[in-house]
């Protein structure tokens, strides 16, 4: 009896030892999948804060010194601290004060400043290349429409930064026109500052509101924001699935076919384009085309062409490089590089839910509020709704101010 028991225990011990030995995860860093492709799997995010474009004061300098980084970290922490404690607020009761409520600490970043002065590695000045005349015209059209709708509000009366380029005046007849282009995001008109709400100062229907408010703001490429950014990558032979956990339930699922098949026909236009991946050495190279005229990325719409490289550099790191090309919009292609660091798989930090859409009471409230104000005005009980600001009113810049010395030191 004792012998059998001993034999059983011994056998079980060997089984356990063998099982542990044969489980690939236990044998240290595995940078290749069991089927031999570079392994991009896991949860990833960037761990340092680097501005997309290099602030002008750094000129051609690519890297910050450790002292500069420490100083920037102190400066940012101080501003965010003032925000969190409500020390820094716009004048009580103004629309900017309301919009600025979103600046609460939950929307701010705690990532330290990174070494690079810009995510853009090409062109060498770290800036988005100049727009073509056609793209500039489109941007100006949108901006002019934004300003026409803002002109009778306090934003322009008080000459706030979000009215830059406009002036205070009576209600514009343009208020009843359809927008000159599909409304996407606040900065589609080139406004450099935080929105504090929608893209155009009107809420006639859901299409007047920006893509964030419509729960359709997930874009490609996405370099993250202070509101959160995690990638969950799962791959098999022939496919790489990436879940983009981005701000406020705007996340989305992408599946990249690894295939030499041609892109979908030109007529098939999609929000996240049409991706084709291939393995080149240790990198997944993805070609993305077929975007819709409704997608918006820094001035580019349906003609955006991306070339992405996802490279597993080491156990903890993926280097992501993407080249944006759209000759109808930029005078030359430009390239961004970002490093993603591996996060704990066990902590289950990637959330596909809650999604924005299932809980979009905001849209209901916004539209019904606008109708109530119109009725009140018609009955002589309230101001003309056209004079009130509900979009691009300023005051919100993800924890920072939208201008001045309390603006984000990494972007001002």
């Amino acid at each position, binding site marked *: 009896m004792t012998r059998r028991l001993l*034999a059983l225990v011994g056998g079980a011990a060997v089984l356990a030892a063998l099982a542990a030995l044969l489980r690939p995860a236990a044998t240290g860093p595995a940078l290749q999948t069991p089927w031999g492709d570079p392994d991009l*799997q896991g949860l990833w995010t960037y761990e340092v804060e680097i501005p997309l474009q290099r602030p002008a004061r750094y000129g051609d300098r690519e890297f910050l010194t450790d002292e500069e980084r420490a100083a920037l970290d102190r400066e940012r922490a101080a501003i965010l601290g003032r925000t969190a404690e409500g020390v820094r607020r716009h004048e009580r009761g103004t629309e900017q004060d309301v919009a600025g409520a979103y600046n609460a600490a939950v929307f701010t970043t705690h990532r330290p400043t990174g070494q690079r002065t810009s995510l853009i590695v090409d062109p060498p000045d770290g800036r988005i290349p100049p727009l073509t005349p056609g793209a500039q015209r489109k941007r100006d059209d949108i901006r002019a429409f934004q300003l026409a709708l803002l002109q009778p509000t306090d934003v322009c009366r008080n000459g706030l930064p979000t009215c830059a380029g406009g002036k205070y005046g009576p209600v514009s007849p343009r208020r009843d026109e359809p927008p000159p282009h599909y409304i996407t995001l606040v900065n589609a008109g080139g406004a450099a500052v935080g929105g504090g709400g929608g893209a155009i100062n009107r809420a006639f229907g859901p299409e007047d509101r920006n893509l964030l408010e419509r729960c359709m703001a997930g874009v490609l490429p996405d370099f993250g924001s202070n509101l959160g950014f995690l990638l*969950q990558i799962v791959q*098999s032979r022939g496919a790489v699935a990436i879940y983009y956990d981005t701000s406020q339930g705007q996340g989305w699922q992408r599946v990249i076919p690894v295939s030499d098949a041609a892109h979908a026909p030109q007529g098939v236009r999609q929000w996240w384009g049409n991706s084709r991946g291939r393995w080149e050495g240790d990198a997944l190279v993805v070609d993305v085309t077929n975007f819709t005229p409704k997608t918006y990325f820094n001035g580019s719409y349906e003609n955006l062409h991306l070339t992405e490289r996802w490279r597993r550099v080491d156990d903890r790191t993926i280097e992501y490089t993407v080249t944006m090309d759209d000759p109808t919009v930029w005078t030359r292609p430009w390239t961004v590089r970002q490093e993603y660091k591996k996060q704990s*798989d066990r902590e289950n930090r990637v959330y*596909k839910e809650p999604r924005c859409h299932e809980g979009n009471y905001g849209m209901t409230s916004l539209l019904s509020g606008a109708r109530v104000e119109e009725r009140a005005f018609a009955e002589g009980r309230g101001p003309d709704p056209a004079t009130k600001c509900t979009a691009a009113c300023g005051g919100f810049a993800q924890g920072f101010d939208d201008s001045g010395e309390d603006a984000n030191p990494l972007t001002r």
Partner: protein
Amino acid sequence: MKRWSTTSIVIVALLAAAAGAALALLTPRPVEAQAGADVPRTPDGRPDFSGIWQAMNEAHWDLQAHAARPGMVTQPGIYPYEYARVPAAPVLALGAAGGVPPSLGVVADDGEIPYTPEAAAIRRANGENWIDRDPELKCYLPGIPRAMYMPYPFQIVQGTTKIQMAFQFTNAARTIHLDEVDPPPDDTYMGHSVARWEGDTLVAEVTHFNGETWFDRAGNFHSEMLKLVERFTPISRDAIQYDVTIEDPKTFTRPWRISMPLYRRLEPNMELLEYRCIEFVEEFLWGNLRKEQLVRRWEGETIIVDITRKVPPGDQLHDWYRR
């Protein structure tokens, strides 16, 4: 002698166990319950479900056996009989495309869904108020198991420790965890799935539902107490047997099962395209709150559908006869 013999027995046992364990772990999965030799496999010998799949049945209309219906929404017609209802306004203009195809059902065993009496009343009311209540019509996340048999393809990407499922409908996603993972911080539409292998069958336990999803367009529903055990078993290279045991003591008097095959989409150029319906339903959800309404009449939140069917010249009924 006695001590030596004990030691030797232990050594022999260890060697035997080691050999057995090595064999068990190194050889492909056992032959019992195994599907055709053409089932794709991962390097460690498990079935590889990676690919684009779709159910080919009418479960998304109604899990249970049903005869064809004249419309997705019906109303009493000339006759006062239940069996003689006619299509109602919202689908009238769709003609024969607005009907509901028949099915022998996917509910296993006796074909019944064992609702409690209270839940059965809710199920009936759901069916009668389908347009206003079905989360699918609002483009909400469809939940599990419904996402698995909606009339849209979905892609399985089977990784080493996670299996990702990407659904065409509203870009929904789900992760099946094969490794240890903390539970989600809140209840969910798509559930929290943790799986293990039983031979060639992937067995997923799905919990942490929020009770906001349905099973089908007939009004079959569940509460936040829903617990699923899903079983994915390869039938062949191109088909998976999908069985689900459904448990929800708040809604059902006993566990019950649904069972159906899932089929591989065989088109050589198949890929998952977008069906991002959030923008498609803005009129449905907020049309009554527009300044200038597109639909002619809203009464409160109710759309009054006035159907105007303009027939272009030459397309009048029977015109084709005269061509």
